């Protein structure tokens, strides 16, 4: 069984935000008006964490794209009372929107605050509701959503590979953020496949994971020479 994982090279990342935009488009993530967004209710599956270092005039911005970490030992799935979120045998932490009752326990349990809640009816830019991605359902008000590693893309590539009677190739299944990244900072693949780019990068001396001491085993690795 594969174990899908992502490696984000912070030394390559320019912080352009293309991954955030691609993710919003790919996954029909609703737009929240600016007042609500200020109150912390913005919906992002791929978020960008910015921290500033130093004093003016020598200020450096550290940018860190943050998807769902798809933990191998996820705390969110353990608190869900209706099994709307669970870890499947390929290591994807799924969120089944039509099962979610909106209790937000999982949001409280997630140490990385990657889950977001639909507080209001989704709003769209004019005409945007005519160009939804048909492969992803549009979430209703009152459910929790999060990055799925573009699991709908996996459904498609699996179907094609099954029909052609061959195993999945490395790099065949990639999420939208990884595909769009102009700096090639986001790699994606199978950790169980020792020839995959992700396997090699995850063993790099630069690799680390966020809050490793929690023991939730995130499957998103960050590469950086800078010691944070």
């Amino acid at each position: 069984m594969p174990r899908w994982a992502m490696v984000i090279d912070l030394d390559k990342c320019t912080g352009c935000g293309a991954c955030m935009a691609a993710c919003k488009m790919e996954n029909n993530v609703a737009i929240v008006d600016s007042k609500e967004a200020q109150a912390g209710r913005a919906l992002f599956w791929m978020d960008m964490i910015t921290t500033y270092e130093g004093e003016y005039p020598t200020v450096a911005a550290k940018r860190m794209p943050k998807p769902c970490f798809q933990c191998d030992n996820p705390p969110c799935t353990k608190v869900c009372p209706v099994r709307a979120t669970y870890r499947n045998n390929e290591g994807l932490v799924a969120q089944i929107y039509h099962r979610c009752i909106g209790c937000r326990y999982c949001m409280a349990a997630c140490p990385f605050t990657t889950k977001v809640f639909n507080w209001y009816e989704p709003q769209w830019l004019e005409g945007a509701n005519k160009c939804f991605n048909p492969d992803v359902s549009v979430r209703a008000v009152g459910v929790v959503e999060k990055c799925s590693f573009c699991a709908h893309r996996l459904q498609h590539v699996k179907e094609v590979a099954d029909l052609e009677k061959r195993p999945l190739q490395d790099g065949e299944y990639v999420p939208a953020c990884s595909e769009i990244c102009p700096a090639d900072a986001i790699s994606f693949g199978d950790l169980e496949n020792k020839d995959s780019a992700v396997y090699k990068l995850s063993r790099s001396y630069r690799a680390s994971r966020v809050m490793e001491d929690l023991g939730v085993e995130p499957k998103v690795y960050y590469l950086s020479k800078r010691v944070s």
Partner: protein
Amino acid sequence: MPKSARTRNLIILSSVGTVLVVLFIVVRLYAGRGVVQPIAYNHRVHIENAGMQCTDCHVHAKDMASATVPSLEVCQNCHSAEPVSKSPEELKVLKYVADKKEIPWIRIYEVPEHVYFSHRRHVIGGKLECEACHGNMNEQTQPVTTAFLPVTMENCMNCHRQRKVSNDCLACHR
């Protein structure tokens, strides 16, 4: 509360309940009967007399997610100018063809928006016959108004269990 008032309330409540239950049963029994297709299409005539295959009209059943309800263009291949039968229903088709108007077929099988279903995967990958879900259309002389196998998660999962295919939520839900 006086006793008579309580009995009266009870009677009203129980009669309302009975009416609701009867209504529910009637609705379940007659579900789909109200569907009137624009043309009383006879599958049997097309399959047995004209010797057609399912994929002659539902052209994408083997190569796309949706099998598709045939467009006017498909009907036109056979029904263009002269009627090929004595059926009064065929005249309706010819009228649609003459007016260049699509026939407003009513779709019976519809998978909800949050489910990924691919005909290609089931027909080619799963080697399923059309009959498994749609019934024996050879015997269908009336237009289709109800689903042979209603599109419910229970039906999907039962078949997946029997055939030992993945019942993981993410295999179908999105």
